[in-house]
């Protein structure tokens, strides 16, 4: 177990290194921060001074090493656009994105899994067909369109829910949460749905497909032959066996949720990292972009680790080193 976790962590190192290299490459190639920072009036000397100040005149590898050294300490410098420490900016924005992503993931799982189970079990019922059609539309609609349509309906036409922002948040240490206020919760609904719909569809379809496969296996047939109840077969035996692939995909999808948050946050002016990122892309605010990338990579590595641990919990076959063989 311990060895397993350690080896996973060690494997994460090359991933993080590769990501930091990409991030750093952006420093060197993307945008010209100097021009943006100088504003309307400047002289050539000022420009040169700034270039030197930012260390942009040093050799590539010196810059890279410096970058890694800083990154390890969570130090990504100051945002070109906002003149504030990037780490602080990200820390400020992360709660919003993570809460949104969490909600979306919960929606996707809480609705997607039961729907997948249902459609897998009752392949030909009317409701299954309805779910399937609905789900296809879910994957065929671009996220941003869903968001805007939701705003049009629920905010503008009906006035039930806010069209933007996070509502009132409560501060818990450095973390801010919208879960504790009515307006915070209301503000979560539309973006979380927008973000969750696509994943919901994916998870539902995945669970359905897995369910259908598992239901054909010999051990399910054998469980039937043993006279177990339907409930025990469908939920005890079948569902658990669908979990392994579902966990994998769900893990990957959580990453995708965070990535898609860029779109949702843009539409709903959600004060999260995605919005920060897209604004940074527009302004070639490389430190923010780089830090964001590294953070996403870190999130992925963590998710993968958790997924592996869940595997380990769910599937005894992976617990090597114990018992016979």
């Amino acid at each position, binding site marked *: 177990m311990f060895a397993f976790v350690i080896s996973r962590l060690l494997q994460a190192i090359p991933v993080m290194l590769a990501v930091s290299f990409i991030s750093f490459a952006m420093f060197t190639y993307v*945008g*010209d921060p*100097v*021009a*943006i*920072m*100088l*504003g*309307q*009036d*400047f*002289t050539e000397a000022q420009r040169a001074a*700034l270039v030197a*100040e*930012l260390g942009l005149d040093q050799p590539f590898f010196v810059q890279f090493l410096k970058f890694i050294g800083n990154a390890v300490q969570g130090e990504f*410098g*100051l945002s070109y*656009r*906002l*003149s*504030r*420490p990037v780490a602080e*900016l990200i820390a*400020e*924005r992360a709660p919003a994105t993570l809460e949104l992503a969490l909600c979306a993931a919960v929606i996707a799982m809480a609705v997607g899994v039961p729907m997948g189970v249902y459609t897998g079990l009752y392949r030909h019922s009317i409701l299954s067909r309805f779910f399937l059609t609905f789900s296809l539309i879910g994957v065929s609609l671009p996220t941003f369109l869903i968001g*805007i349509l939701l*705003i*049009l309906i629920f*905010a*503008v036409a009906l*006035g039930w829910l*806010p*069209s*933007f*922002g*996070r509502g009132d948040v409560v501060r818990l240490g450095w973390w801010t949460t919208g879960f504790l206020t009515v307006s915070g919760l209301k503000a979560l609904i539309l973006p979380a749905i927008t973000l969750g719909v696509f994943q919901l569809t994916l998870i539902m379809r995945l669970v359905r497909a897995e369910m259908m496969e598992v239901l054909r296996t010999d051990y399910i047939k054998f469980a039937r032959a043993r006279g177990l109840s339907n409930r025990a077969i469908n939920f005890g035996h079948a569902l658990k066996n669908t979990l392994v692939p579902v966990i994998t995909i769900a893990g990957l999808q959580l990453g995708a949720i965070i990535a898609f948050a860029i779109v949702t946050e*843009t*539409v*709903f*002016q959600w*004060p999260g990292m995605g*919005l*920060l990122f897209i*604004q940074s892309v*527009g*302004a*070639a605010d490389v430190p923010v972009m780089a830090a964001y990338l590294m953070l996403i990579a870190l999130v992925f590595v963590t998710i993968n680790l958790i997924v592996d641990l869940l595997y380990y919990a769910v599937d005894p076959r992976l617990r090597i080193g114990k018992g016979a063989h």
Partner: protein
Amino acid sequence: AEARTVRWSASGDPNTMDPHSQNVGTVTMVLQQIYDPLIQRSRTLGLAPGLAVSWEQVEPTRWRFRLREGVRFHEGQTFTAEDVVFSIDRAKQPTSNFGIYVDTIESAVAVDPMTVDVITRVPDPILPNKIASVFMMSRSWSEANGATRPQNTRQREEIHTTRNTNGTGAFRLANREPDVRTVLARHADWWGWREEGTGNVTEIVFRPISSDATRIAALLSGEVDFVLDPPLQDLQRLRSAQGVSVLEGPEVRTIFLGMDQFRPELLYSDVRGRNPLSDLRVRRALYQAIDIQAIQRVTMRGQSMPTGTLFPEQVNGYAREEDVRLPFDAARARALLAEAGYPNGFEITLDCPNNRYINDEQICQAIAGMWSRVGVRTRLNAMPLGPFFAKIQREDTSIYLFGWGVPTLDALYSFQSLLASRAGGQQGDGIWNYGGYSNARMDALISRMRTETGDARQAAIREALNIFREDVPLIPLHHQMIPWAMRSNISIPHMANNQPYFRWAVVN
């Protein structure tokens, strides 16, 4: 008094709270609620007493300001001449972005606690215009908080003033979450509340919303009361929406096209061996190929004032006789092109920002179509302002869309920056002249504008405007209009500098 809150939104958020660090509209629009300058703008953008009750040019290079008595900062410090001297010095620091407003100032001297002398290196006739953009800070507060220098955004630093304020203004900063929400509360002791025509707003909640559609949705659904920059296409809908009203007015900003006129061969064109844009006939052809009326009606939805000159009438030096466009005439344009040796036109790339000016990309698309129709096959290259500015600052462009605002409301600012020859002039000359336009007569007129006063100066401006019209160094398009949208229960004077002054706002 009962709470009267205005929830206000715009697309951008101020990136600092330091009053001398960033000379950007998004910063100023919040800070001018908090800080006062010595001289402030009236509702018509004229000069009005602010923290200075009067000012005069006691010598050609010395201006004297008499300060208002009994003014206190939000944190209680009394406002004195020391603070003025400190603030002007601070604005002159290298890390300040406000240098252009204090560039002529040699020093500021406290004559007595309520009098300050500003000494300039050269006679500066428009100093009051400039000083109206310099906010006054408390010396003791700044020193106590280690903020005697403006925040240096370039040097990876964050100082007290990045997020804290202490002004003398009508509102004080109650809460700030960058990019999310900035809350201002009424400063009950503001000296100006006693004056006539002030409003009743007790709290301002500013929330940036970058997506146009969402911003408008928020206004329509009543989550926001005031939108500074509603998209033009939504005005019709907003006007007809219940409970929403729209204020329209001009901005002191002119949109034009800059052209590479100095290279022997254009970077982005199929013409080899010569530069068509250095030929007046071609410039005029491009000019006359533009159907500005169509752009105004369709692209700008009526929210623009087509122009033939360099700045709008609010700016000192404006001359209506010079504000005449070359007429739209596609046939003439084709003829001019043929005359210049391009009977089959040529190919060119138009660089264009897509998030800087109102409908900038759409304007460029429309122009590209119009030029293409007279044979100038135009490729459109639209990008966000970051890369766009970087590109044109490298002079890596052949023709580009640009907009120029005049905060000093004086003609010199435009001529100096946009049309002065880049080589050999004074510092600051031609720094935005990326087309490399150079005209000895123009340069001479600009130096006269700098030093002369009175009619002589006006004549120089007038002549420069005439040259502008004849020589087409830039193709003027229009002055921007800036509609503001708000819930109907709010009234606020529309300002051509696109700054809402909530001290004058009334909520019913």
